[in-house]
């Protein structure tokens, strides 16, 4: 008997999400209080984290001309907000599957997506003058929705394809209609488990474009995040990976920021 995705299955998935490893947690604590030297020392104890930081920071998207290998150097270059953001990105990479099933992704393209989102998000926050530790880190939770989607739907790929052959439904809508839980609800649970600020979870949840209760700066951030997500998911690599169809693009939600978005992100792209 086949059941696609039930609420029980989602709750079990959330239950099985590992808590943040102790070293990452401690490193994050040092970063949050601004002690980057201790953060670097702490991070040294986790070889996987060390490798991740070195590899990520030296990817072309970060734009450093010379290889940066010393952790204290990495942390001081990054600064508090970006270091926190990258540590969350690392946590997210731990959650990413070894082999993607639903989406044609590999971990390199996923890291590139994380890095590209993070870099553009920083530009946006500077433009909006809303840059702080929490807002900068908010973008790191967004790709969790992709990981969760892949995890929940991989084994039901063909059934969902049959359903989508007659109705243009995105994965997030299918999940919500089947279980009354959305991908963004699961992201919120992940944020809570990793002790992220509730503001981060609220912004990412609203970035689905369907939260009617959100207002003020959080709504503005959610609008920009939603459009940024679709800007990225419209890139060839992610269209080919099947990511363009995983959530529904709420065009009305972002219509009024489109021109400004293109000035900030579009110009940035053409200059980079």
């Amino acid at each position, binding site marked *: *008997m086949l059941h696609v995705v039930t609420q029980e299955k989602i709750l079990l998935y959330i239950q099985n999400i590992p808590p943040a490893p102790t070293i990452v947690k401690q490193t994050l604590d040092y970063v949050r209080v601004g002690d980057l030297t201790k953060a670097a020392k702490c991070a040294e104890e986790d070889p996987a984290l060390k490798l991740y930081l070195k590899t990520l920071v030296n990817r072309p998207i970060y734009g450093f001309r010379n290889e940066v290998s010393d952790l204290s150097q990495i942390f001081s270059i990054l600064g508090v907000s970006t270091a926190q953001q990258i540590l969350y990105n690392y946590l997210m990479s731990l959650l990413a599957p070894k082999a993607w099933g639903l989406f044609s992704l590999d971990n390199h393209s996923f890291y590139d997506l994380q890095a590209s989102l993070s870099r553009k998000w920083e530009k946006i926050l500077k433009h909006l003058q809303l840059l702080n530790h929490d807002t900068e880190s908010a973008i790191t939770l967004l790709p969790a929705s992709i990981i969760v989607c892949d995890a929940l739907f991989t084994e039901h790929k063909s*059934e969902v394809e*049959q359903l989508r*052959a007659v109705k243009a439904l995105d994965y997030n809508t299918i999940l919500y209609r089947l279980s009354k839980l959305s991908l963004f609800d699961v992201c919120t649970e992940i944020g809570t488990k990793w002790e992220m600020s509730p503001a981060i979870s609220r912004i990412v949840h609203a970035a689905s474009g369907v939260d009617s209760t959100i207002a003020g700066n959080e709504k503005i951030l959610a609008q920009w995040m939603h459009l940024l997500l679709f800007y990225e998911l419209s890139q060839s690599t992610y269209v080919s990976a099947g990511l*363009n169809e995983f959530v529904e693009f709420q065009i009305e939600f972002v219509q009024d920021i489109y021109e400004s978005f293109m000035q900030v992100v579009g110009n940035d792209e053409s200059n980079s």
Partner: protein
Amino acid sequence: MRATVKGRVAVFHPQGFLDGNNAPSFLTIDDIKATEGLNIDMLLVSLKKVIFFNKNGLDVFIRLLISIRNQKHIAVGLCDYDSAKFKTIQTFYGSTLNFSLFRTEKIAELFVSTNKNDSKTVLLYNDDPSQRSAMAIELFDYGHNPVIAQSKKEFEEKKQSPDLYYAVIEDTYLGLFGQKVATRVTGNAIIYTIGNFLDAEIGNTFNIAYHNNSLNVGFRLFIFDAYKVVSMNVHALNFFTKLASSGAEYNASICFVGLTFEKTPKSFKNDLEDAGIMFFNQMEDILKNKELLRELGGSSATSSKNVRSLTKGLINELSGLIDATVSTLAMMTNAKAIKESMNIQLLEIKDSKNQYASSIGFYGDLDGMIILVFPKNIAKKACELLIGEATDNEELILDSLAEFVNIIGGRAKTLLSEKKNRVDITLPRTYMDVDSLMEMAQNKKGVQVNLSFEGSHFTFFLTR
């Protein structure tokens, strides 16, 4: 990206940004092959969720649309845009615009055949009088009632009462349309509109798949509205005589209405009559004559007089077809099904009240028909996933039920193809009550499987 198929319309739904760099990624070789294999009358690209597009991006999709139109003689175009996007597209393509533009998918659906008898009243306006007339003729040929505004002022006035119209058609353009013979359903008769000079091209423009679908789901009366036919040649004559012969197995009646033989050889009439085709002067001569309608098989979707028995090949696939149905229902309802009994018998429905019914046929290497009878509560629950909320709107439920049955048909097709049986599926048909289903299925023997879903009974019936 795969197109979504509803009825005989397939639509691509790209999202976000569409330009020359990313557009090719939306269409892999497999996607193109799958699209070429679809049995459809219209192929569209929806711009509803596209916030930015440029000509290079659109061109990637347009090339595919034009290529498929050339192969299949179907209508192709773009849909779901606002006035600003409409103007942009017109600017991009100017006088070379040779595909259609439909402001909404709902408007596009008015220009294709369905197997439903639902004439819609629509308000229509276009600055270009030739476009206005072309749309009005097409809409009329598809069985609708277009109210044509002759001026912008008149249009704006009439638009103030949107409740009077099923749709308001503006910012729409028909490009290279009329490649298929228009089809409409009246009661249980199918009416095809033909015109001009009929020659070998009728073999391309007549939708034989739709015709076969209609035969398979129980239609028996086919009327050719031939008022606009000037003449026909021997190739067209051969086509119609073959069509009549192939329909004989189903006891189908084929009639021509309004055909004059001023420029067509009189002997053709004799040949067509010998093949069993009948001639009438007026449409009302058939549609208003109840006795004649019954005789011709147009008073109900009756079953064939030649009862066709189940084949061994079909029985071999039975368990797979049941699994496809049960697993689809389980997927849509998150509920478990329990098989209660299975017998070879005539269709028997115990509590015929409060039930919806639906059917879908398949034909090719194997042919048959799956009939499903649902308690209304199960049907509603199954459709919630497609509709997005609980509803009591019967029309909406039946429409979604058709989509639901289409999913089952799609799974059955996949399942059979895995065993090297190539089949096509018919359009799904839904019935608001079991009685109208029984008219069609009364003589059909088949395998009846009674299932229980959360305490409610659900019937699966496989027949030919």
